[in-house]
């Protein structure tokens, strides 16, 4: 039994190694994806093109404009006088995409400020990209407040001091790369398992295997452990790229991450097996696996927090096994979460794994027997 199992795993590895297309699908494409995504998936808002309408034109107003310069948030256009660039032109500037934010400084800005009066300045944002607009308004209000405190010496008595844990620099790539790792492991194992099994069936080699003295349980285990192992190798590579290339910190326990990944693999491998039993061609299997992945990724909290989604969708995400794994990978890598912190996720993944793996193993054995 054991020797047959080892033989099978060897056979599978040789098969994968010889199939160039498969190798590319397993290794080259995911790593390329990780690199591209790591750079593209940047939700930090930077370099907002900002128009400044300075109707005051004094030393103080210029100093105020300069306070927007540090940091990478705003790119201020050279100050424009009312004649050069009338304010009614702003609509045009927004529509052509030349500006995303406008700062309007009223005529009596420095005079009233020096007299200790309250001055209202205008911030106008292009709301098309809601996220960028919100961030731009947020940052600029902060800058305005600082400048105001500096000039008048009057600040609000009660202050809120924020302390950011786990990611003090608020780098979005630290959050996204662990997410990509979870995504890759899911996509590769589901696709690989379903396509590889379907291909053997398409070519008739699965039938040949079933007439050998290997039991269908050993056959199943052999296939599954190969794909599981490949998934793990994939994850190690992805983690290495994340840590060494993107400089992502790994705070928690790698052993815990691997144990829980193995638990999660029960679900994805089971899913792959299930897809292989309901499809007859590789193309169908690939399509089904891809379709599942899109659903799983979008409702896993990968791009946007689950708490943002409508309530009915939030409940739906509880049915998504990837949601749990996403929280596990991010929790362990970024926050150093331990088993006690991740208990609900572990229970969810275990229940999912047991049900899906069990059912699809039964179905698979029925179809091969």
């Amino acid at each position, binding site marked *: 039994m054991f020797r047959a199992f080892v033989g099978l795993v060897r056979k599978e590895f040789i098969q994968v190694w010889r199939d160039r*297309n498969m190798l590319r699908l397993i290794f080259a*494409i995911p790593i390329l*994806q990780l690199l591209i*995504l790591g750079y*593209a998936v*940047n*939700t930090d*808002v*930077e370099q907002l093109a900002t128009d400044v309408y300075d109707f005051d034109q004094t030393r103080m107003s210029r100093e105020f404009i300069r306070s927007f310069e540090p940091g990478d948030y705003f790119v201020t256009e050279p100050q424009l006088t009312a004649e050069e660039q009338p304010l009614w032109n702003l609509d045009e500037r*927004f529509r*052509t*995409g030349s500006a995303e934010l406008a700062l309007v400084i009223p005529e009596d800005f420095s005079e009233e400020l020096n007299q*200790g009066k*309250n*001055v*209202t*300045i*205008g*911030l*106008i*944002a292009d*709301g*098309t990209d*809601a*996220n960028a*607009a919100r*961030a731009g308004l*947020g940052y*600029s*209000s*902060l800058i*305005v407040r600082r400048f105001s405190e500096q000039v*008048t010496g009057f600040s609000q008595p*009660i*202050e*809120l*001091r*924020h*302390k*950011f*844990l*786990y990611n003090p620099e*608020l780098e*979005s790539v*630290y*959050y996204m790369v662990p997410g990509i790792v979870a995504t890759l492991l899911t996509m590769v194992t589901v696709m690989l398992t379903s396509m590889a099994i379907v291909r053997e069936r398409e070519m008739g080699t699965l039938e040949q295997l079933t007439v050998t003295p290997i039991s269908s349980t050993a056959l199943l285990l052999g296939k599954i452990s190969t794909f599981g192992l490949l998934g793990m190798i994939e994850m190690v590579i992805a983690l290495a790229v994340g840590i060494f290339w993107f400089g992502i910190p790994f705070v928690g326990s790698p052993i815990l991450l691997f144990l829980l990944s193995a638990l999660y693999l029960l679900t994805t491998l089971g899913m792959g097996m299930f897809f292989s039993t309901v499809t007859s061609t590789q*193309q169908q299997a*690939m*399509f089904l696996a891809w379709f599942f992945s899109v*659903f799983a990724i*979008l*409702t896993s909290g990968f791009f*946007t927090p689950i*708490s*943002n*989604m*409508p309530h009915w*969708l939030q409940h739906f995400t509880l049915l998504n096994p990837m949601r749990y794994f996403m929280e596990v990978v991010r929790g362990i890598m970024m*926050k150093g*979460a331990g088993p006690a912190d991740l208990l609900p996720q572990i229970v969810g993944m275990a229940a999912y794994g047991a049900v899906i793996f069990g059912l699809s193993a039964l179905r698979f054995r029925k179809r091969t027997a």
Partner: protein
Amino acid sequence: MHKIRYIALKELFHILRDFRSLLIVLAMPVMMTFLYGYAINMDIENIVISVVDLDKTAASRELTDRFFKSNYFSMAEEAPDFDDPEQLLRSDNATAILLIRPGFSEALQRGEKFQLGMTVDGSDASLASAVQAYSDAILLQFLMDRLPVGFEPPGLTVSRQVLYNPDLQSSHFFVPGLVAIILLMVSALLTSITIAREKETGTMEQLLTAPVKPYQILLGKLLPYIFIAFIDGVLVLIFAQTVFDVPFQGSYLLLLLFGFIYVATALSIGILISSLVRTQQVAMMIALVSTLLPSVMLSGFIFAIKNMPFLLQAVSRIVPATYFLKIIRGVMLKATGVETLIVPAASLVGLMVILLLLATRSFKTRIG
């Protein structure tokens, strides 16, 4: 002309008979619209926080109320454990913990300096900065409301105005973008598969020996997909307006015109891919990797192009969706006119010409 019609009809029958293709063509756009429209929601609301009130006065309770009465925050189910308050953040049961130390209400009355603490889970950077901005705003409003009537503190006040999308709904941004993605998928993915399928099953040779010219075959095969792309586009636009309330400010005619240019460009990608490969599987893989991924990730659909490193920005320039996104968002949200959109439209035409040149070259060498 009627030769083209026959081939187009034949192709249409193929699509209608094949359940899977039909699924991609009709069910996919609808499902993607709903999924993206709801799941990709950058409007950050209902952030779960927990409050530790050690002051326990009317003032501290009022401040706490202010937090939870806003739409931005909602209360965590669990109270933090005093020995390990961060456990709440580690286990994802809360995003932030607000700490009101004793002495808050006294300092408030005397106008003394006082510091409140907020520990924020920084792992999701955009969520964390939203927490910071919202909590600062709530505290500021709380303090302003306690000032005597008519008293204006010296300094600056900001008056904000948001154009085109005053409620800052992110679905207004994403749903028009979906049209770009879905049109590309239907046009590029399906055409590349259908031509590869004729090659694989050998029916392409039969077609070529029939008394029709290659361009007639090509045109006949493309027509049904232009038709389908049009239906899908309209479908998504209807959803955008009815379900997600996305406004349509500009001209329908303009969008239709530029939409045709975009679909033609996407079809050229499909033709190019299918002329390069022999099997459906490879066609599908190449189409997925070369069209869908860059269109979702590198076109500005979700992530801003200007934040990307130089190399990816260069890649985004050869992704057709980049240009169509500018067009459709401009037309729908800002009523942008021809004079601005002519630039991205011209880029699309340029891309299309290059793609078609490449495709006809490899098509000829394959057949000849």
